[in-house]
């Protein structure tokens, strides 16, 4: 399983948000994308998930060109996004949110997966019948993450999955992402919490103003080096 983004261009009217970005997420690996606010990270992920269609370039899943396909089609191919800003279904209950995450999965798989999510995030289990919109910010983030796990994706796109989470839960989520990758899923993660994410990432790219300006293997990329790059881009 593999997701390849080649030479992607995404524009919003006159704004060129993504300019010739190429990224690879391979099964079993966590690819991490870092970058300043407005660099174009979310735009890239949203295009890969089928919410945007981009101007040119290609998005290849398992050898098949998928750019321009709609999000529901991407989900059917196993590509799932944890969206920026949680985007939980506020008036539905926690459990209903999770069930929706498993919309494409069989009933039996769903029940099992729900159990797993509750195990990972016990607070969600306590609130299963409560309305999702009433959860605290961090609880909602857990729900968004758990919901994406429900469909047993093969490519997992995560847009700042640790946002608003307490440090201990950040750890849980990062460990979760690692173990998903280890189970053979390709993970492409955008994260601002570079410290936490670098610990579990395999590959790292830094995005600056719509382009990839630095790539490397996480093991070699010290936090310091990455920060230097990020700091530079910010000052540019």
């Amino acid at each position: 399983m593999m997701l390849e983004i080649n030479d992607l261009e995404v524009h919003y009217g006159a704004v060129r948000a993504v300019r010739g970005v190429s990224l690879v997420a391979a099964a079993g690996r966590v690819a991490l994308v870092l970058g300043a606010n407005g660099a174009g990270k979310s735009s890239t992920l949203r295009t890969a998930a089928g919410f945007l269609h981009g101007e040119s370039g290609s998005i290849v899943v398992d050898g098949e060109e998928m750019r321009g396909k709609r999000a529901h089609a991407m989900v059917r191919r196993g590509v799932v996004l944890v969206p920026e800003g949680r985007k939980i279904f506020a008036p539905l209950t926690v459990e209903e949110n999770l069930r929706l995450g498993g919309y494409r999965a069989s009933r039996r798989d769903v029940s099992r997966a729900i159990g797993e999510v509750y195990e990972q995030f016990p607070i969600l289990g306590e609130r299963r019948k409560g309305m999702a919109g009433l959860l605290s910010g961090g609880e909602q983030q857990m729900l968004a993450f758990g919901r994406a796990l429900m469909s047993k994706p093969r490519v997992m796109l995560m847009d700042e999955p640790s946002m608003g989470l307490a440090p201990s839960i950040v750890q849980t989520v990062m460990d979760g992402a690692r173990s998903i990758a280890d189970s053979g899923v390709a993970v492409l993660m955008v994260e601002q919490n570079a410290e936490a994410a670098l610990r579990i990432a395999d590959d790292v790219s830094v995005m600056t103003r719509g382009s990839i300006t630095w790539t490397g293997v996480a093991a070699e990329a010290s936090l310091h080096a990455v920060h230097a790059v990020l700091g530079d881009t910010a000052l540019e």
Partner: protein
Amino acid sequence: MSTAPVQDERAPILEIHDVAVHFGGVKAVDGVSMTLHEGLIYGIIGANGSGKSTLFGAISRLVPLVSGTMMLDGTRFDRNPPHRVPHLGVARSFQTVRLLDDRTVRDNIRLGHDAVGSVPRREIEQRVEHVLTRLALHDVARRYPSELSYGIQRRVEIARAIVTRPRLLLLDEPTAGMNRHERDEVSELMLSLKGEGLTQFIVEHDVQMMVDTCDYIFAMNTGQLIAEGSPADVIADKRVRESYLGGGDDARDQ
């Protein structure tokens, strides 16, 4: 609970006594008391769902109290309707960005000042220009929130809160979605606001940043205060480490 010496020299600005907020069976805030003194930066840390945002909601009077009293400059305000609170010099930002989609960034910032204070219009415009500069938002002043990346929207959220020049500023996760450098910048901003005498009350999950920025930290768990004091003391507290930092040693490095 002990009161750290750092607070004593200054006049108290916000005094909260035994405040509780319940939602049905959920005791989101359960008997919290605290005193904030003028000109310092206070922080709250605590696990997800421990009641931090709800406490902010209580202070801004958006959620009703079950019990307790709150005083601002020695005057009780826990019976005030929410729209009175900004007039008392308290401004806030929200954990989830709440901007008007049909209005430009500049208009959204202006909104912060629309109902507060009797300041001449020219003066308001100057203040708006000033915060636009201060948060480096000039280039997007005419854009609409939905056209901005998440991190930039957060900056607008902060800008709207500080444009009124409040006496007490509540910021709920102001740097969520920002990277280390961007956070440092915001933290520098907060320190410079402190230099101008602004009292600030901040919720953040970035412990490092809280330690670097705050003068005094409260730690919450399941609706109650479990520790307070200087950043170093609170981080070292066993209960805080267990409930919040995730126990392990590496949490301290963060």
